[in-house]
């Protein structure tokens, strides 16, 4: 089997450390997405797995083989690049078959593999063309085809959809999903787009500042973000935040207070908090409901009525900008004061270090 194991992987350029010790287990056949803002190290990490970057410290095992010093061609991987990197002087056929040719595969076997890949990707009619004669989506297919013929254990994707327009991106996303099911190979996919991450991944790895912030199933990350960063990064629109102080504790319910809102009750079973603790309150825009006497009062700045839902931009008493996404059509207008409530189970609290207090030890999450 070809499980992939990263143990305390580090990468530094001179004195600058860009990957600060990453431990990760990727099971065979998993679709893993590395997501994070630009500069978080996600591409570097992928390139280290590919063998395009040296690993400064730590170990990378593919299957049971230590791969730190193995040449990329011997790692059993294939990669799809952001710019596709098709060889412009070769036809699609030769582009797809280049790796096989280099490996000195016999001609008939080569031909069969190229045609199989073309069939899977429905691009048999494109085989004689040059890359310059293809559309963006077709180039994308060729790039994937080039990866497929290598029959790799692990597919690596470096932001492969970011050069496509929005509609095509949705199509290709579905095709990639289908391809994953068909081939059953491990796929590691890098993106900065959290929607892509949510829709494609079996497991999302959120990276920031060269460290894993949280790894887990998409819904897990959405519902139980380990820290402020993950909470802010996963989910669209972004989660609303506000600094609060713990006023009191009633069993599993923590009462928090702040100048900008009335006291709010948050139900977090098993959490430890003491009155007076400074925390950050997080509420997803979708969790807010209108309620005239709700604890959250705001002045409406902007209303976007989409028919099935209404997005309300509003200002709290102290000027903090929040967002609410309400079901159905709400005929609110600018300048209006609206009250909001949130079900007790919905809000999240983060401690002084930004950790979600509902999750005692965020490190435990990584093993998932």
């Amino acid at each position: 089997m070809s499980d992939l194991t990263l143990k305390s992987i580090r990468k530094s350029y001179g004195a600058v450390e860009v990957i600060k010790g990453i431990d990760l287990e990727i099971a065979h056949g998993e679709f893993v997405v590395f997501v994070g803002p630009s500069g978080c190290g996600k591409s570097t990490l992928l390139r280290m797995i590919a063998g395009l970057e040296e690993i400064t410290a730590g170990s990378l095992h593919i299957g049971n083989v230590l791969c730190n010093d193995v040449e990329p061609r011997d790692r059993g991987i294939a990669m799809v690049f952001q710019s596709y990197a098709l060889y412009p002087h070769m036809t699609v056929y030769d582009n797809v078959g280049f790796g096989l040719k280099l490996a000195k595969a016999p001609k008939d076997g080569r031909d069969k593999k190229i045609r199989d890949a073309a069939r899977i990707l429905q691009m048999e009619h494109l085989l004689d063309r040059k890359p310059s004669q293809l559309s963006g989506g077709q180039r994308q297919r060729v790039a994937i085809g080039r990866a497929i013929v290598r029959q790799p254990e692990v597919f690596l994707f470096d932001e492969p959809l970011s050069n496509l327009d929005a509609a095509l991106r949705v199509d290709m996303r579905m095709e990639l999903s289908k391809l994953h099911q068909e081939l059953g190979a491990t796929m590691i996919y890098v993106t900065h787009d959290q929607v892509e991450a949510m829709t494609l991944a079996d497991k999302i790895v959120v990276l920031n500042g060269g460290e894993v912030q949280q790894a887990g199933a998409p819904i897990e990350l959405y519902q139980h973000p380990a820290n402020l960063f993950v909470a802010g990064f996963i989910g669209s629109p972004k989660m609303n935040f506000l600094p609060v102080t713990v006023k009191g504790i009633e069993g599993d319910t923590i009462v928090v207070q702040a100048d900008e809102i009335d006291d709010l009750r948050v139900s977090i079973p098993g959490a430890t908090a003491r009155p007076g603790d400074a925390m950050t309150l997080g509420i997803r825009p979708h969790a807010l409901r209108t309620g005239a006497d709700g604890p959250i009062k705001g002045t409406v700045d902007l209303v976007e009525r989409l028919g099935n839902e209404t997005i309300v931009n509003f200002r709290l008493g102290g000027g903090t900008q929040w967002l609410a996404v309400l079901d159905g059509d709400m005929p609110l207008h600018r300048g209006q004061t609206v009250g909001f409530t949130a079900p007790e189970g919905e809000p999240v609290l983060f401690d002084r270090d930004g950790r979600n207090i509902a999750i005692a030890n965020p490190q435990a999450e990584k093993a998932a």
Partner: protein
Amino acid sequence: MTLVRRYGLTVAALIGAGFVFVVPFLFIVLTAVKDRTQAAQLDFTWPTSFPLWENFWTVISTRDFMLITAYINSTILTVGSITLLVILAAMVGYVRQRRKAWWNGLVDFLVLAGLMMPPAVVPTIWLLQQLGLFATLHGMIFIEVAYNISFCIILYRAFVATIPREMDEAAIIDGARPMDIFFRVILPMLKPVTITVIVVQSVAIFNDFVNPLYYLPGNDNVTVQLTLYNFQSQFNTSYNLLFMNILLVTIPPLIVFLFFNRQIVAGMTSGAVKG
């Protein structure tokens, strides 16, 4: 700009350019097809007789068809030098652009030195003699490579910078070894700049006079530019033949110019925009 001024300027420019740049060429062509006595007058007149073929044949056959030998030699010299230049310069330009290393500064310095500094001729002759390369065509080929490689490296390096590194990486993932990456992926992609290098350098090497003068003495290895020099004394009084020779020597660059005007200008002006 008003239409009148525009036409006026055009006419003035055409007349000026005609006088300054076209008349000398017409003079060469006219003199080349005159007979000997009329040519000796060195005036700008229409030929009274057209011994075109006669002049041509005399020039060609002089000194046992030296001009033919010279054409063959110049062709070998040009083709050989350019083949080496393209491959060697592309390799250097590619690695210099791609790789971060301590020797980058040294390479840049040597390239600049090769571009600006004149060669030390007598020590070079001395060295060529030691190596058994003096007065040989292959020695001359290496000389042309050494003297012209700086310019080619600069062109290649600038062009490699426009090829995304992902191309190399895609090839690496595909299992290409360094030689495969360079010869099967990068070199084909360098085609536009290779054409420029071939065109510009073939004109330069074909027209080179000084270096063959020093390093290729003797009649066996004569190049076309040297025939002009050799015939200058022989055709002392036969301007028609001398000018026919100039005409024949000018034809190859003229052909190149007609077909590759754009590449020549692109190659020679590279750096004008970026500095």
